[in-house]
C-alpha cells in the first residue's frame, strides 16, 4: 500500500489510498483526492477528478516508475507586480505549499532510486469551473509550469485550462494518460472537495513543525 498525503488541518499525513479492482479496465484503481498523491505499481491505474486543481504525473523514464499528485494551492494572490508567479518567493504561502506538494511525489520516486535528470512530467487540470473573479485554475497552471521549469523537469504533454472538469487515468508503469471531460453540471462534488481542501490550507498558516531532537 502506498502513502498518500491529505491536507486535513493543513498538516500532511500519510494514509492508505483507496484501492479497488476494476473489472472493466482489468486493473487495480488507486483513487486520489485533492491534497493526495500516489506512486503506482504494475497493474495499477491512478485516478483522480480535477476541477481547478492540478494533477502532475511524474515519471522516471529509466526505472519506469510513475506517480501522480492532485494539488490545490492556497487562496492567495501570488503574482508579483510584473504579473509573474513567483515559485521561489519564501514569503508566498503558495510557493511553499506548491513546492511541498510536488516534492512529496518526487521524493517517493527518489526513494525508489530515481534520478532527477530522468524525470518527465505531464500536467492536467486548472479548469475555470467557478464564477469567481480570480481564475484559480490559471494560477495553478502557471505555478506548476514555472516549478517544473526551475526543476528542469520537461513537460511531455499537458491538457490544462478550459471550462470543463477532467477525470484522469494514469498508468504509472507506461506513463500513458487517459483524460475524460466531465459535464459541468456534474462538477458540484468536485468543486466542494477542492474548496474544502483549499480551506484547510488557508485556515492554517504554513507553520512547519519544529522538533528539537536532543530534548
Amino acid at each position, binding site marked *: 500500500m502506498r502513502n498518500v498525503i491529505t491536507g486535513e488541518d493543513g498538516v*500532511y499525513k*500519510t494514509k492508505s489510498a483507496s484501492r479497488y479492482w476494476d473489472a472493466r479496465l482489468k486493473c487495480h484503481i488507486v483513487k486520489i483526492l485533492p491534497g493526495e498523491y500516489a506512486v503506482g505499481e504494475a497493474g495499477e491505474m491512478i485516478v483522480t477528478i480535477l476541477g481547478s486543481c492540478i494533477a502532475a504525473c511524474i515519471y522516471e523514464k529509466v526505472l519506469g516508475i510513475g506517480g501522480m499528485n492532485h494539488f490545490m494551492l492556497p487562496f492567495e494572490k501570488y503574482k508579483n507586480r510584473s504579473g509573474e508567479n513567483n*515559485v*521561489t*518567493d*519564501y*514569503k508566498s*504561502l503558495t*510557493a*511553499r*505549499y506548491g*513546492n*511541498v506538494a510536488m*516534492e*512529496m511525489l*518526487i*521524493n517517493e520516486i*527518489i*526513494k525508489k532510486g*530515481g*534520478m*532527477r535528470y530522468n524525470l518527465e512530467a505531464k500536467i492536467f487540470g486548472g479548469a475555470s469551473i467557478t464564477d469567481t473573479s480570480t481564475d484559480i485554475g490559471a494560477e495553478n497552471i502557471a505555478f506548476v509550469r514555472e*516549478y517544473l521549469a*526551475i*526543476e*528542469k523537469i520537461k513537460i511531455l504533454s499537458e491538457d490544462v485550462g478550459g471550462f470543463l472538469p477532467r477525470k484522469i487515468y494514469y498508468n504509472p508503469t507506461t506513463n500513458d494518460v487517459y483524460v475524460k471531460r466531465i459535464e459541468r453540471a456534474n462538477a458540484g462534488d468536485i468543486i466542494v472537495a477542492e474548496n474544502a481542501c483549499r480551506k484547510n490550507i488557508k485556515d492554517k*498558516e*504554513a*507553520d*512547519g*513543525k*519544529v*522538533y*528539537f*531532537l*536532543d530534548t
Partner: protein
Amino acid sequence: MGKKILLVDDSESMRKIAGKAISDAGYDVTTAEDGKLGLSKIEKEKYDAIISDVNMPNMNGLEMVKAGRMFASNKYTPVIMLTTESSDEMRQKGKEAGAKVWVVKPFNPDQLLGVLKKLIG
C-alpha cells in the same frame, strides 16, 4: 561577513526559497544539490550550521550528516533537517545521525530563522 550556512537540497526551487530566506537574514549561504556534493563541502570547509533535506538522490541527508561527523572541521556543527518527512521513526533516525533540529516542510521562514538564531546566533 555573516555566519556560514551549508544548505543541501535536491530541489532547485527549495534551495532558492530557503536560501533566499537565510541570506536575507544576513547569513552567508552555500548550497549543494545532494548528499554526496554536500559531504564534499563539509569535508573542505567549516560551517556554522548545516541545513539539509532528507530524501535526495546519490546520498540522502541522514547518511550525509552521519558521514560528515568524521571530518574534524564540522564534527560539532549543528545540523537542521528540513524535510517533508514527519514520522517519529524518521525523526529518531535524524537524532541518531546527529541532527539537532527537525523542521517539517512546508516551513515557515521565520521559524527556520528562529531556530538558526537559537543555535548559532
